[in-house]
């Protein structure tokens, strides 16, 4: 039948998790078919899209990725546009305006490339602080997968243990750290004066040398929305490698139903193409890696007689515990130049503030100097003042150099009330849009009030800020976690320690959705580590037939 196809392993989603799993499968001789809802484009197209955006839109990373009608994603350029796809409600609805694109390669295109690990403590919140849940395994179990992930995607980082986060490592980073620009150095120095250590980030960016066929970073300062030279790990380089190994990638294929069989094993995935024609693909093993929103949505869409609450959802936890790191931003005006725009857009963070005995009462926080060039901001703001001549040039230079932004990303606990459900509103294909209720909770609010905001004001003062405005509305960090939460107990979790669905022996749900807790750091490296752990389990299971 023309609209039937099959492979040993069906992977839905072509982001970092899908790509890492695919390569592992292909390396072990399993056939792979990947389904991607969105289009497949070349790097130059995204770069040109970006350069052809009007200035203010350049600050919206998603604007360089216009969605196809069959694969909508949130567009952030106005509140009205942002409300089109993601349906958000609750006290902190604004903080779940998650940015991700539905293109082949997913968020790897526009991620900052930051690769923090969780700490051992981050994985034992219940035991140590009496809050949230413990992971079903410890850091030592995850560590080898972290290392494999760092070598798979090419992560640079410091060799000095005093600068590593955490410093519990079985191997050094494959590359050394990237240098700081002037702003990042001044931020580091000011932090040190008040007893805080600003660490060079582990980053999936090639440092000094080429790695895995990609060139070294040259400081194009455009990691978000796209690295123009492929120095950062992204799917534009990962996808051809998968194809070279024999994997097949089907773009514009929107999965809308996971089909179960008599023993509740998964038998097929159904997808619509861009002409609304339905197709069915069968396989032995199924990996859903469409990100922390699209995967739970697909599971809920797939409810059937055997699974009346949705596939993988006997626990009723699919779509619950939605997490991120709620963000506040401090906008600083300084008397002296700080300077941004030298090196990558993000390159360091204060991490020690994510840990402490206070975690019984409130969450931790990460503080990051945003290194994205502020010349677009400075240019637009100065021009709007109606200045001309030398006064205009001087004001552009001052506003660009003497302003800065510190992002604070807060640790949030898994809460079953923070829940993704299917909206009554439907997209172009007739598929329900995701609806998410979100409340950051008192754990986050207390952190902001008692800890993170007072601390950022202290930092700002030490930097010599003459004005500091701290946002009062939490916003998204785009680190989508929790919706297929991992645990040992099938009654209160969706996946087991290998990201295998408790309910379905041949269904794997690796990625951010499986994370039991999120910590303060960017979630990608943990997602990648879980992808490799799941891949090992898929291979073992495939071998056993």
């Amino acid at each position, binding site marked *: 039948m023309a609209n039937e196809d099959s492979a040993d392993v069906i992977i839905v989603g072509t982001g970092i998790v899908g790509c890492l799993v695919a390569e592992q499968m292909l390396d072990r001789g399993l056939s792979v078919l990947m389904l991607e809802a969105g289009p497949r484009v070349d790097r130059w197209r995204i770069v040109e899209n970006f350069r052809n955006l009007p200035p203010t839109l350049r600050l919206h990373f998603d604007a360089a990725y216009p969605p196809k009608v069959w694969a909508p994603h949130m567009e952030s350029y106005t509140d009205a546009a942002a409300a089109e796809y993601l349906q958000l409600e609750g006290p902190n609805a604004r903080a779940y305006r998650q940015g991700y694109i539905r293109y082949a390669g997913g968020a790897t295109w526009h991620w900052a490339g930051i690769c923090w690990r969780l700490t051992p403590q981050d994985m034992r919140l219940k035991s140590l602080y009496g809050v949230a849940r413990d992971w079903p395994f410890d850091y030592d179990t995850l560590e080898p997968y972290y290392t494999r992930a760092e070598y798979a995607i090419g992560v640079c980082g410091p060799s000095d243990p005093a600068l590593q986060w955490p410093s519990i490592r079985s191997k050094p980073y494959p590359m050394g750290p990237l240098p700081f620009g002037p702003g990042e150095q001044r931020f580091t120095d000011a932090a040190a004066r008040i007893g805080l250590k600003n660490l060079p980030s582990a980053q999936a960016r090639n440092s000094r040398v080429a790695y895995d066929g990609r060139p070294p970073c040259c400081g194009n300062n455009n990691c978000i929305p796209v690295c123009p030279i492929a120095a950062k790990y992204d799917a534009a380089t990962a996808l051809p490698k998968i194809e070279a190994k024999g994997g097949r990638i089907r773009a514009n294929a929107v999965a809308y139903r996971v089909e179960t069989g008599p023993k509740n094993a998964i038998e097929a995935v159904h997808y619509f193409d861009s002409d609304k024609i339905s197709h069915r693909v069968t396989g032995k093993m199924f990996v859903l890696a469409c990100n922390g929103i699209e995967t739970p949505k697909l599971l809920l869409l797939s409810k059937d007689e055997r699974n009346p609450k949705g596939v993988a959802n006997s626990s009723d936890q699919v779509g619950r515990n939605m997490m991120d790191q709620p963000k506040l931003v401090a906008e600083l005006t300084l008397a002296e130049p700080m300077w941004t725009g030298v090196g990558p857009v993000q390159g360091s963070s204060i991490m020690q503030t994510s840990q402490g005995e206070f975690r019984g009462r409130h969450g931790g926080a990460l503080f990051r100097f945003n290194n994205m060039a502020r010349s677009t901001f400075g240019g637009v703001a100065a021009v709007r003042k109606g200045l*001309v001549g030398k006064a205009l040039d001087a004001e552009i230079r001052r506003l660009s150099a003497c302003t800065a932004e510190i992002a604070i990303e807060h640790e949030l606990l898994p809460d079953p009330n923070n829940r993704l459900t299917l909206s009554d509103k439907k997209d172009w294909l007739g598929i329900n849009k995701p609806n998410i209720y979100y409340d950051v909770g008192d754990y986050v609010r207390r952190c902001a009030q008692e800890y993170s905001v007072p601390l950022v004001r202290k930092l700002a003062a030490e930097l010599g800020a003459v004005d500091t405005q701290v946002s009062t509305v939490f916003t998204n960090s785009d680190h989508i976690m929790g919706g297929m939460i991992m645990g040992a107990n099938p009654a209160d979790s969706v996946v087991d320690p290998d990201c295998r669905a408790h309910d379905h022996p041949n269904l794997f749900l690796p990625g951010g959705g499986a994370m039991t807790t999120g910590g303060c750091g960017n979630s990608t490296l943990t997602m990648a580590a879980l992808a490799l752990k799941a891949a090992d389990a898929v291979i073992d299971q495939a071998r056993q037939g």
Partner: protein
Amino acid sequence: MTHSHRDDAPADFSLFRRKILIGGGVILGALAAPPIATIAADSAGSAYPSQFMELSGLLIAHRLDRDVGLRLAAALRMKDPAFEAKVGGLLQIAKGKNAKVVEDFFADVPEGPLKDAALLIVSSWYLGVIVDAPDAEVFAYELALMYQPTSDVMTIPSYAISAPNGWTSQAPPLSEMPIF
């Protein structure tokens, strides 16, 4: 068309700070060359394009890209049929003051349509767009002048000015305005 500023012409895009200084000398030389007013009139014989470039040169004391200017001129007139007359009016004021730079005559431009037109020309050159709104046409990205007052330090996003691990935490003082 050849774009010497594009990243597909890397030999022309190697901007170590020393080279910026050398380049600054070249730019100064270019400014001393015959001015933009020598640009040919458009096919209809209108003096408007060259008047637009002449006025732009008086409003903005920097090197202005001719291709960008001609496109801006056409788009501004398309948007506002009275724009050509406003350009003429502004030129008249500037010439009346024997102006060489914007500071010589801007205070004499009356509030209202003429001043708005002058500011629109300035903002278009600096921002690379006539309006900064979704779906607006972009006339200049890397040549938009807003990136130039910080070009000694800041990367124009997506255009590297460094080399592998070639950047440092050193930065010049605010007072050292780049020449552009």
